[in-house]
């Protein structure tokens, strides 16, 4: 009874062909079909940010997207950052600054930060709030997250890409 279709998804630099109902949520496809469990369900309504992914470099909530809406788009999850066992500078900064407790929210925060650093040449508190205040951390690690983000942002000014 399911009307399944094939979708070629561009995720973390690879093409994955999945068979799914076109109205399956991107969140479910990434977690269940592709095993990308860094993408987590929190609120299920786009408020908490635990299921954040980057689509064309922009943060979106994978719980609010249907697989059929994204099949021509480039998707990035935390699994796709860094490479060859090397952490992305944002990940490194999150460790150095103790920017998490339970870490359920951490991949979402990291992706929002990565998007911000790539899209915004001028970072001020306004832009920081615009990108990050939509990711919720119930453990309340916000001050440490801000420290980590500001450190990487400063590093970017000094030349890492």
């Amino acid at each position: 009874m399911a009307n399944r279709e094939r979708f070629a998804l561009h995720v973390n630099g690879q093409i994955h062909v999945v068979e799914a109902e076109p109205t399956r949520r991107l969140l479910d496809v990434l977690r269940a079909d592709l095993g990308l469990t860094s993408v987590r369900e929190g609120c299920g309504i786009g408020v908490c940010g635990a299921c954040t992914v980057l689509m064309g470099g922009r943060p979106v909530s994978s719980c609010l997207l249907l697989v059929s809406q994204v099949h021509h788009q480039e998707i990035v999850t935390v699994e796709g950052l860094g490479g060859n066992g090397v952490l992305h500078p944002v990940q490194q900064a999150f460790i150095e600054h103790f920017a998490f407790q339970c870490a359920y929210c951490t991949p979402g925060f990291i992706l929002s930060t990565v998007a911000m650093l790539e899209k915004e040449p001028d970072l001020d508190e306004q832009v920081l709030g615009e990108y990050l205040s939509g990711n919720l951390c119930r453990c309340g690690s916000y001050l440490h997250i801000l420290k980590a983000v500001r450190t990487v942002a400063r590093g970017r000014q000094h030349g890492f890409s």
Partner: protein
Amino acid sequence: MAIGRSVPVRDAEARVRGAVAYLADLRLPGMLTAKIVRSPFPHARIRHLDPRPALRIPGVVAILTAEDFNRPGAPRLFYGVDRKDQPVVARDRVRYVGEPVAAIAAETPEAAEEAAQAIEVEYEELPAVFDPLTAAKPEAPRVHEDCPGNVFLHTRLRHGDLEAGFAAADLIVEETYTTPPACHAALEPHGVIAQWADGRLTVWSATQAPFVVQETLAELFGLPREAVRVIVPPLGGGYGGKGYVRLEPLTAVLAWKVGGRPVRLILERSEEFVTLTRHAAWIRIRTGVRRDGTLTARQVEVYWGAGAYADITPRLLRSAGLVRVVGPYRIPAVHVDAYGVYTNLPPAGPFRGTMSFEGAWAYESHMDTIAHALGMDPLELRRRNLLRPGDRFCTGEVIEEAFFWECLEAAARHVGWDQPYEKGEGMRRRGRGLAVMMKSTLPRSRSECRLVLRADGVLELHTGTVEMGQGAHTALAQIAAAETEIPLERVQVIGPDTAQVPYDATTSASRATSMMGAAIREAAARLKEEMRRRAAPLLEVDPEELILQGAGVTLRGRPEVWIAWEEVLRRHGLEALEAHGVFETQGGLDPETGQGIASPHWHQGAGACEVEVDIETGKVRILRYCAAAYAGRVINPALATLQNEGNMVFGLGQALMEQIFFDQGQPLNANMSDYQIPSLRDLPEVLESVLLESPEGSIHGLGEMTLPPVAPAIANAIFDAVGVRIRDLPITPEKIWRALHGE
């Protein structure tokens, strides 16, 4: 030294890679999806329940209803950590909106969902009651037939001569404070996987209390404890919401009905709001005080709305529900009456800062009312009355480690309490406030651990402590490393898994680092002793002459004589050396008088803040907040600071925005858009964390102590700014605006 260092948490890299496997990430072959069918009514008789239409849906494997408990060999229907009043699924009556009436196991989430819609249930509505004060009236509808008046427990604390105390007062102040139900809102929802094999049950659960779950399930199925295994993955936040027993009985019984395949239940966000809440509390507090600020008597009456089932409330009422509502003060006469009340709302239970939050909201707001009535500086009033080392608390116990004043003074200093400031004249007015609290941890509880020194040089720490983001596994590994002098990177933490690790009561009440830490110290002492005993004959010396050093044993004063422990083990033909550690606290209060030992040590925290109130809208901005805690001996300063900041942020939500709204028992805001928690932009402009350390002090858990002061400190600052006293949480702009404008 491994203690006192900010080492990153053990699995930091996995955490930033998103590679930590929470419960929802576990996959077992043949795993089925569970779905709960819930009551739409707050109180109703189930007239008819027919699962058959749902059974016909393809992919549905089993449906659990109360009928199944009548089968021969069936588990018990009722469970509960104190009184067994809660059915796994409702039998003939439902008592809150969201109570499980049936559960489905299906091949896919879609089939489970469809089946849930197809089950036919007919209800006959009954009169219901929602707030604890109304419920406690004799004529109120009965939530449980056998409990007229709905008060299932009344506990008392009696200390000193109350009448004489009030007679000695120049002023008596009486006020009433309330707190509403709230939601823990961990980003990770509750989840359980259960599987039966050969009459044995294995449960994977996001729980803070694996051994309580094990005991409850063993009892439910009439099995020996060993036949039930509970494994706990890292938690995506707990805050008390995953304490004790939650969905494990339902999932385990559903799996029992299924047979051998694993069954997985993960709650939807909306279900979180009807699974466990903070208590709805009504607190009347009355205090006698002399003109010079000396407190002479205090009487507290508190109604704890427990929801439809008693859950942990009776246990809490025998100690926490009494001593956490008094305050850290020397008062010659104290009476407390605490009532546990059933209502037709979801069950209430542990909640970060349990009962201290509600208590401090009342007594610390009340202290400011008293200070204002006396014309005294609120800090000075507290200074004159706070417990000092050697003082006796109202339970009769002597408080040795007492640093309430130091905490409060530090917080006050950080917001410039004694500096003048501009209160403002226009639309925005500024004010300052402070608050302090004392919180008991669990009396009469036990933690055990095992240390296993392997021939390859690794030290295994087997512990039932649950890692839920607080960094407990890291802190405990640091303690194990420090106590054994084994390098931290060689310490491996195993557990929690009831089949692999020894008993631990629970990871709650900020007890883990302190209690499990003490068990580790004991195990380490035994391990060292054992090592020396084994090494001595090899070196032909007395064991007393040997000390553990590096990865081996050396002779006191002669470092050149050294033997690697691998060598010790090899020469004895051992693969590993083991040592067991136990730490147990005694105590408990007399049920009639509340006298005795409430806590092995006391959590102490304070907060001070400066706020700005928009008098036209009632909106509050926190300009500056300082949270100060007595930390004793700090294991990992960075993790300790994180916990302390977390308290503040969590407390901010409780103070200003969090409340589950019920309309005739129906939750109105069971989602995270209508129920709001603090975001990054809600932080105070300046947020400071102070940890008062004492290298000789005891080890304290830090995940709660500065949370309870947040709400009263803010309310007191609002009072200072605009002269209105808010007594019902949360402190919304509208409440302030109404108080200001007399509406």
